[in-house]
């Protein structure tokens, strides 16, 4: 597959941009924040997205999706990044549908992926337990009891937690923290007794929560895949999730950069526009170069998923690490080059740096993925 968008993909990109710049902009995110929205996104916007097929964009047609592949989903996520559009695209479409696709039985896939594609079900992955992404150190316990499992432990950074109908809870049926063996994935209904949900507030104003599971009884039929064998599929799903987040960060960083360049052409000091100063020109030009590299590696990584390349981890960590680096630089430069106005809540550029850091952190930040990239490269 060539590193170039085809006609169908270019159309998808344009229609995504058209919709999101109308319906799900930074101004909308600000309104959700200021109105204290419990769900953190607009149900109306989500219904429209479902109607356009985005809820099933990467889900195969056999399961009721559009079958546009992850390159298609990546294009939508990039536009969502440009507009900081709040929606369950990340929690349900990118992450959960992928985990189900990797680990679920044929029957589970048919039921759940169909429901996700139809917009009937929101699902969220409950993985992280501490301040960092260390999936192998999962300590949440799942003890077998008859044909059930009893789950105990806590989770943080559960996306769209207060809107999700179902959680995919990663727990340990065996082994000790650090082991690949023994990790299991459970479908846990949000109404399950013993599950309590706490809405949390992060800098990006998106919907996120913490879960406490206290003697939560879950049927063995709710296991995704065999008990203790979740790591392989989960790991691949996390690679895909990181590539999707890299696509979102690409859109976010590009938008922050373009807004900054526009500001450099408009703001005057010392009797001239500040964009005429070489000190700023060279920083902008270097950032432009980095953004071009970022765009290429994201496209290569999305293609790698759709081509079914077996060695996905290397390109996934490369893509996420590069986009963490570039998004961090683009948003930091955006604030600095906007000067005082960039520090104000009234101006929108601050929303970009806030969302960037949460997306960077999710499923492993720059340090995590650069280390992993080096390890997978043999050093």
């Amino acid at each position, binding site marked *: 597959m*060539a590193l170039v968008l085809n006609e169908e993909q270019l159309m998808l990109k344009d229609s995504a941009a058209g919709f999101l710049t109308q319906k799900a902009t930074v101004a909308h995110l600000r309104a959700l924040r200021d109105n204290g929205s419990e769900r953190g996104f607009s149900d109306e916007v989500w219904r429209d997205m479902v109607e356009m097929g985005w809820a099933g964009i990467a889900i195969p047609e056999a399961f009721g999706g559009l079958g546009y592949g992850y390159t298609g989903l990546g294009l939508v996520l990039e536009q969502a990044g440009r507009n900081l559009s709040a929606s369950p695209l990340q929690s349900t479409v990118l992450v959960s549908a992928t985990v189900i696709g990797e680990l679920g039985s044929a029957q589970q896939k048919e039921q759940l992926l169909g429901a996700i594609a139809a917009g009937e079900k929101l699902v969220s992955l409950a993985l992280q337990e501490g301040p960092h992404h260390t999936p192998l150190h999962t300590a949440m316990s799942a003890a077998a009891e008859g044909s059930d499992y009893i789950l105990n432990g806590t989770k943080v950074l559960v996306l769209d937690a207060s809107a999700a109908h179902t959680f995919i809870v990663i727990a340990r049926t065996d082994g000790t923290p650090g082991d690949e063996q023994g990790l299991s994935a459970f479908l846990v209904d949000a109404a399950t007794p013993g599950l309590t949900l706490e809405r949390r507030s992060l800098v990006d104003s998106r919907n996120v929560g913490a879960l406490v599971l206290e003697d939560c009884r879950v049927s063995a039929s709710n296991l995704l895949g065999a008990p203790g064998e979740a790591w392989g599929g989960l790991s691949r799903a996390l690679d895909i999730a990181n590539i999707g987040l890299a696509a979102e960060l690409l859109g976010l960083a590009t938008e922050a950069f373009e807004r900054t*360049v526009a500001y450099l052409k408009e703001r005057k000091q010392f009797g001239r526009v500040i964009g005429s100063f070489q000190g700023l*020109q060279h920083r*902008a030009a270097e950032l432009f170069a980095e953004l071009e*590299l970022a765009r290429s590696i994201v496209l290569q990584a999305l293609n790698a998923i759709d081509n079914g390349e077996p060695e996905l981890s290397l390109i996934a960590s490369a893509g996420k690490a*590069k986009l963490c680096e570039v998004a961090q630089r683009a948003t930091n430069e955006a604030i600095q080059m906007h000067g005082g106005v960039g520090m104000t809540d009234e101006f929108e550029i601050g929303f970009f740096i806030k969302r960037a850091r949460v997306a960077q952190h999710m499923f492993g930040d720059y340090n995590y993925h650069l280390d992993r990239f080096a*390890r997978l490269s043999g*050093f």
Partner: protein
Amino acid sequence: MSDFEQFRQETRAWLEENCPQSMRTPVKGFEDFYSGGRKPEIEHPDQKVWCDRMAARGWTVPHWPKEYGGGGLDKAEVKILHQEMARIGARRPLDSFGISMLGPALLHFGTEEQKREHLPKIVRGEIRWCQGYSEPNAGSDLASLATRAEDRGDHYVINGQKIWTSYADKSDWIFCLVRTDNSGSKHEGISFVLFDMDQPGVTTRPIKLISGSSPFCETFFDNAIAHKRNLIGEEGKGWTIAKYLLTHEREMISGFGTAPIKSVGQLAVETMGTDLTGRLANSVLRQTIAQYQLDTMAFGATMARVGDEAKAGQGLGAASSIFKYYGTELNKRRNELNLAVCGEAALGWEGKEYRDGALSRDWLRSKGNSIEGGTSEVQLNIIAKRVLGLPDA
């Protein structure tokens, strides 16, 4: 059998018969390529044999039209030829500025007569060309060049000095930017002329670089003669050709940034070893190498993407403006890492144990990559102004 398959079989058979065994060995370094000319540097007699045999079929420059001595092959055939050459490890038979720089400019801007006069001699490796661009006071600000060309009817008389003329002392002819008019802006009044270096008015002096080699010269013109039939394009409009050629040169230099065969990380593991987790023991160096390899991968993806976009008819995107800048900076980073990874072994200057200082000399030479053909700073100016649309100071 398809036409392409037949072409492949014939090519394979011909190469098998005509490529001397000695030309199926890797070159020792960049400077081992055969460049032809009236006074060729011949390391091995087979170099000329190989070049002559290939030139007879036009395959020293397989994609040029047959009427100018080239091979007249289309893109698919050129690819097959290169694949078949690679299969037996055949060296490029001829490598010259005539092929990479002047030829494309002549094909684009030259008259029919000029193409017929000069291109076949490039294909046959008879004439070696050098490029007369930079001057002592016209480096980054190339358009301020001052070498004068006075109109004497059917010829120009040229006076002035060029610098950084690659291999001028080994070349036969020069393609040269000269000033034919001083009255307009600095970009006007520049002309692109060709002339023979073998004349009393031309002298060259090699410049010894920090790497110890002397690939560049100072070139002096003292009433040198250039015939008007060798003026390329219109008089005073040479800047257009100069810019066209600079683009070519920058693409060539940016290719230095592509990933080496053995990764720096692998080299580091072999020379320095790992800790019990398989990681390089020095975490600071490990991080620097990882950043370099990540950027090399992303740069490679960018070259591929720009190529694919061009093939899909989406034109040469803005991304191509970063090639020269980014590729040369990456090459400098790689050379610094070679030093860090190899330590004392990379600091050798002479002697077998240091391969005559191959690593240190490459490292020193790489410093010039971000200066020659437009400095990194000039490239950033170009991106800022032409791509981002930021205003002049």
